[in-house]
């Protein structure tokens, strides 16, 4: 037992010493880079290295300043864009992170990182919506004082009632269909579903049973929409569905038009929805062109089962359950391979799932052994701190050289070793360069 304790204590001391050494050399590294940055304030590389080193040391405010300076010097530097994004995320500045990551997608070079960034952007878009919703609610009084355009329409989830609760996800699916079809008209601007849902989540508006006539205008005012569309879906018997839709004027809180309603069998759901939309458009005084009308007549799928699966996916997505959402969307695609919206949303949901796992560590890991990774390694290893992976690989390359690797260059014209693999001196060329002697051996054995 004494031996075990001693070993543990010893291991603890080693870990503590290693940690202290790392912190000390990281501080040395930063001090050196700060000095270099001060001496060469016009050097974008110096600012970049300093910014990366600050980020690695969790000094985000300092990192942001240095990386902003580097970015202003060279907006096309992908590594700077990446670390600006990481830093902004660490500071919860989602919009700057998104903008920086989009810059990386434009100018970055490492495909693995680009793929992760694309996935991360899906997560950030949701975060940005939630943040915007919080800020909008906080500024509700100010936003509500500005009248929204009557041409801006928000479609809220429909309220379902009926015995078959498996149809309840149609609340979102039906609203999505209505919103999509209303947006076919060039005279209307339909509020983005994700943005609207983020606001609804924030103010729990959906708990007030959707939008009934003359109610639920709070969300509309915050969104500065002129009109709200909402309604109910009622299952009358096992096979009959009735839809009632209302238009609410956000400013007057009064209903507009006569409202729209229709009742059909379940398998005529899409015909029911088209009929409702056309009546709503008529109530709004919107005249459709032939092309717009033809567009509205298009159905996303012919399969009710696929649309139900899709609606469940929307529900799961709104709850933040992207993994489950992807499964529902995949199921919808399996039932109807031509269901394009389901296929697109499946991809987005998968990106959101994978994007949630994207971290600074995973991104930096993807940079290993790339040209951009070398830039980062140069910053983090400048003073001997951090990974020595680069040095180990350089030595491994010299121990086990690749002729083609050397012949295709490594990024600089400066030869740091003989281009030729020195070991080939023991190979065929060493024999054949002694041609005269070999010939003698052949002819005079």
């Amino acid at each position, binding site marked *: 037992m004494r031996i075990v304790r001693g070993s543990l204590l010893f291991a603890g001391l080693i870990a503590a010493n290693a940690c202290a050494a790392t912190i000390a050399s990281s501080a040395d590294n930063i001090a050196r880079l700060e000095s270099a940055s001060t001496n060469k304030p016009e050097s974008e590389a110096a600012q970049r290295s300093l910014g990366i080193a600050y980020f690695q040391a969790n000094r985000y405010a300092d990192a942001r300043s240095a990386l902003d300076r580097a970015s202003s010097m060279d907006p096309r530097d992908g590594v700077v864009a990446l670390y600006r994004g990481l830093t902004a995320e660490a500071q919860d500045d989602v919009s700057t992170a998104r903008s920086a990551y989009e810059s990386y997608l434009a100018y970055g070079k490492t495909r693995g990182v680009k793929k992760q960034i694309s996935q991360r952007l899906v997560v950030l878009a949701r975060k940005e919506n939630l943040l915007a919703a919080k800020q909008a609610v906080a500024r509700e009084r100010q936003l509500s004082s500005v009248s929204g355009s009557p041409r801006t329409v928000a479609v809220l989830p429909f309220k379902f009632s009926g015995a078959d609760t498996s149809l309840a996800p149609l609340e979102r699916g039906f609203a999505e269909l209505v919103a999509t079809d209303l947006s076919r008209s060039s005279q209307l601007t339909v509020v983005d579903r994700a943005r609207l849902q983020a606001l609804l989540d924030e103010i729990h508006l959906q708990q007030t049973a959707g939008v009934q006539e003359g109610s639920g205008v709070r969300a509309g005012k915050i969104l500065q929409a002129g009109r709200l569309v909402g309604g109910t879906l009622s299952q009358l018997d096992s096979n009959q569905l009735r839809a009632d839709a209302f238009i609410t004027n956000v400013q007057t809180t009064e209903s507009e038009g006569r409202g729209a309603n229709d009742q059909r069998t379940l398998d005529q759901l899409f015909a029911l929805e088209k009929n409702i939309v056309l009546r709503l458009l008529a109530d709004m005084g919107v005249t459709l062109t032939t092309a717009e009308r033809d567009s509205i007549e298009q159905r996303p799928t012919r399969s009710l089962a696929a649309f139900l699966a899709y609606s469940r996916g929307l529900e799961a997505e709104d709850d933040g359950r992207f993994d489950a959402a992807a499964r529902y969307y995949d199921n919808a695609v399996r039932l109807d391979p031509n269901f394009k919206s389901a296929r697109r949303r499946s991809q987005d949901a998968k990106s959101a799932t994978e994007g949630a796992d994207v971290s600074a560590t995973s991104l930096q890991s993807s940079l290993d052994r790339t040209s951009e990774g070398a830039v980062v390694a140069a910053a983090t*290893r400048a003073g001997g701190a951090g990974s020595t992976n680069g040095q180990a690989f350089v030595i491994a390359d010299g121990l086990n050289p690749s002729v083609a690797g050397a*012949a*295709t260059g490594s990024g600089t*014209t400066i030869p740091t070793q003989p281009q030729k693999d020195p070991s080939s001196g023991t190979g065929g060329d060493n024999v054949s360069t002694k041609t005269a002697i070999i010939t003698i051996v052949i002819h005079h054995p």
Partner: protein
Amino acid sequence: MRRCSLALLLAAAAPLEAQSFDDVSARIAPQIHSYTIDAPASTKIREFSVPLFVLVPVAPRLTVDLGTAYARSHVEQTALGKTTTSDIAGLTDTQIRANYVLGNDFVVLTAGVNLPTGQSRVPLDQVPAASLIGSDFLGFPISNMGTGFGETGGIVVARPVSDWNVGAGISMRRTERYEPFDAGAEGTLRYQPGNEYRARVGADHAVGTGRVTLGFTYATFGNDELAGSIYNTGNRYITQVAFTDDVGPGKIGVGAWNLLRTAGTLADSTFLGHEDITSAAVSYALTVGRASIEPNVEARSWAQQDAATSFLTTVGVRSQLDAGGFTLMPGVGYSLGRVAAQDPGGADVTARLRGFHATLTIRLR
């Protein structure tokens, strides 16, 4: 041994199938290198080659790369007013390497195989074309057309020491027996290269915004055996130093290396004196719009025991620009110097040397 290596290859290939190709990078670099050596050597050597290098990060800790090349060598030699030519062309050997990182970046295992896809058996009329590209001094990018099957394994350990990153490694290479010459009806010669043992240390250190890199490699060899004759051409010591930094609007690079081969013996047991090649180069890269232009100059010397010292100076320029998903790196260079030769009377003299190089490296990712 061969069976064991095939098993290793298969093991490496299995995860490749499951790997996303998003992270694969590749480089291809068609290039031509030509040297003309005046009398008394009166030799022209020209090599056109297309090396291909593909790097696949199989897993976060495992990378595999594959390198091969197509090469065409042409040699013209004039003696007593008569010019003879020698040509050889084809695929060279293929090297597959794997590097595996253990622990927290500090230990790297490296392994590789040399697949004999090139032409290792050379008819006598192709010997000049196959052999003169092997010169350490001229440094052709593809230095031989083919050897036997070979295996390499090694381990590297790297650690931060004070303000330096320091690493050290050892490796061993074994090459299977092969027949380097096709002597027709006069029979064949079997060649068994000796095993090679390498040790290498390296270090890098920040200097301001720049970086200095040092390296030293020691290679020792077991005895070679050619048709029953045992010999050893000497050990090799390679010393390297490089420095890069931002200077003014551009980036400067300074590099030097030295290759020292100790004395040894040839296949007929005659003495082979030592040789020493030193190279120093400077480049300066400037960014112009979306491209960079990098003029460079290199000086090289070759000291051989009992021979005149050879010199070579190369002036070149290289550019780098991104085009779509590719990076293009065209480069040209012109060389001038003198190389050791013997006059008809057997006296050590030097012959004028001129050279031209053009390369277009295309990098995907």
